[in-house]
C-alpha cells in the first residue's frame, strides 16, 4: 500500500502548529456571532419595527448564499466599492465573514429557544416590575441558553470546520498548510488525512465540553 506512515506522523506536529490560528478564527468568530445572534433574536422576538425587517433580510441573505461566496464578496468584492476596505487583511475578513454567516443561523436557534420558554416566565418578570429588556436578560435568555446550547454547539462545530475556507483568502491556517505540504510532496492522502484527524479531534474535544455545559445548565431542573 502506498502510504508513507513516517511522513504522516511528521505531518501531525507540523500541522498542529497552525491549529492555533484556526482556533483563533473560530473562537473570535463565535464571540462576534453570538453577540450579533442574541441581539438579532431579541429584535425578532420583540418585533422591533424596521429593525425586525432588516434582521429578517440579513438572516435570509446569509443563510441563502454559500459561505465561500460571502467570503469572496467580502474580501475581494467590497474593496472595489469601498477603497477603505483594501487594508483589511485576510484573517480579519475571514473572521467577519464567519461571524456574519453563522450569526444568521444562531439567531434563529436562539429565537426558537426563546419562543420555547413558557410565556408565564416573562409575565412573572413583568409582574415584579422588570422591564421587558431586563426580563429578557435576567430570566428568559438564561433559560433559553440551555435549550439553544445543543444547536449552538452544532453551529460552532460547523464554524470550526468552515475556517478551512479561509485558505481561499490566503490565510495560512491548518488547511492552507496541509495543501501546501501535499502539493510539494505529492503525498496528498497523508497530508489531508492528518488534517482531517486534527479537525475531528478538536470537534470531539468540544463535544465533551458541550456535555459538561449541558450538565451544568441542567442542574436547576433536577428534582
Amino acid at each position, binding site marked *: 500500500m502506498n502510504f508513507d506512515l513516517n511522513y504522516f506522523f511528521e505531518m501531525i506536529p507540523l500541522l498542529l502548529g497552525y491549529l492555533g490560528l484556526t482556533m483563533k478564527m473560530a473562537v473570535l468568530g463565535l464571540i462576534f456571532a453570538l453577540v450579533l445572534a442574541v441581539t438579532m433574536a431579541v429584535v425578532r422576538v420583540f418585533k422591533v419595527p424596521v429593525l425586525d425587517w432588516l434582521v429578517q433580510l440579513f438572516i435570509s441573505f446569509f443563510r441563502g448564499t454559500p459561505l465561500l461566496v460571502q467570503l469572496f464578496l467580502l474580501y475581494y468584492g467590497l474593496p472595489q466599492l469601498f477603497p477603505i476596505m483594501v487594508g483589511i487583511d485576510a484573517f480579519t475578513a475571514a473572521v467577519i465573514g464567519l461571524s456574519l454567516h453563522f450569526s444568521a443561523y444562531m439567531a434563529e436557534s436562539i429565537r426558537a429557544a426563546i419562543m420555547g420558554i*413558557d410565556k*408565564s*416566565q416573562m*409575565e*412573572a*418578570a*413583568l*409582574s*415584579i*416590575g*422588570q*422591564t421587558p429588556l*431586563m426580563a429578557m436578560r*435576567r*430570566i428568559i435568555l*438564561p*433559560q433559553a441558553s*440551555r435549550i439553544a446550547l445543543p444547536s449552538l454547539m452544532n453551529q460552532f462545530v460547523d464554524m470550526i470546520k468552515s475556517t478551512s475556507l479561509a485558505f481561499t483568502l490566503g490565510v495560512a491556517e491548518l488547511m492552507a498548510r496541509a495543501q501546501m505540504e501535499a502539493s510539494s510532496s505529492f503525498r496528498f492522502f497523508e497530508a489531508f488525512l492528518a488534517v482531517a484527524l486534527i479537525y475531528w479531534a478538536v470537534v470531539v474535544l468540544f463535544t465533551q465540553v458541550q456535555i459538561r455545559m449541558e450538565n451544568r445548565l441542567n*442542574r*436547576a*431542573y*433536577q*428534582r
Partner: protein
Amino acid sequence: MIKIQNLVKSFKGQTVLNGIDLDINEGEIIVIIGPSGTGKSTLLRCINFLEQPDAGVIAIDGDAVDAENARKKEVLRLRRNTSFVFQNYALFANKTAAQNIAEGLITVWGRSKAEAMAEANQILADIGLAEKADSYPAALSGGQQQRVGIGRAMASHSKVMLFDEPTSALDPEWVDEVLQLMKKLAERKQTMLVVTHEMSFARDVADRVVFMEGGRIVEQGPPEQIFSSPQDPRTREFLRKVIRD
C-alpha cells in the same frame, strides 16, 4: 386607595370585560367569584397590564393610568405598585427559591445582592420554607412553589396583591398550606384581590365578595350577605351549583 373605572377588554371581538368599576380600600380583602370564562382572571391581568385593557382608568393612590393612552413608564409604575400570584406559580425556573424572591429587590428596588438575599431568607422563614432557600423550583412541591410565589409577591411590599386562582393548579393535599399563608397575610391587613373557587376562603377571610358574570360585576357585598341572602338570581344559581353542603 385603588379605583378602577369602566374597565373594558375584548379579545378578537369577544367582550370579556364589560365596563368594570371597583374600589378597593387599604387593607381590604376582596374575593372575586363567578363562573369560568366571565373575565375574573382578565380583570386581574388588566389591573397590572399583563393584558392591555381597551379602555378604562386604573388609579392607585390617585396615580391614574388611562388604558387608552397608557405610557410605558405609567405601566411600569402600576406594576411596581401591584404584585401578582399566578395560577401555575410561574417561579423563575433558573433561580433558587431565595433568588426568586430576591430578584425584584435587586433589579427593581435597587438593593444590594447581600441585602436582597437577607430579606429573601427572612421572607422564606416567614412562609415556613427557610430550609428550601437553595432549592430550585423543579425540586419543590406544588404547594411549596406557590408559597414561594406568594413570597416573591410579598417582597415588593406592593400596595395590592393580586391572586389569580392561586390554588386551582394544586393537588388537594397542598391547597391548605397555601390558603393558610394567604390568611396570615390577610390578618396583617395586606390589601388583596383574590380570584378563587375556594368558597370557604371567601366566606372566612374576605371583607367583601364580588360576584362576576359575563364580564360585569353582578353583585357585591360582605360574605354573609352574598352567601346567605344573594339578591341576584344569577348569584343564587352560581352558589347553588358550587356549594353542595
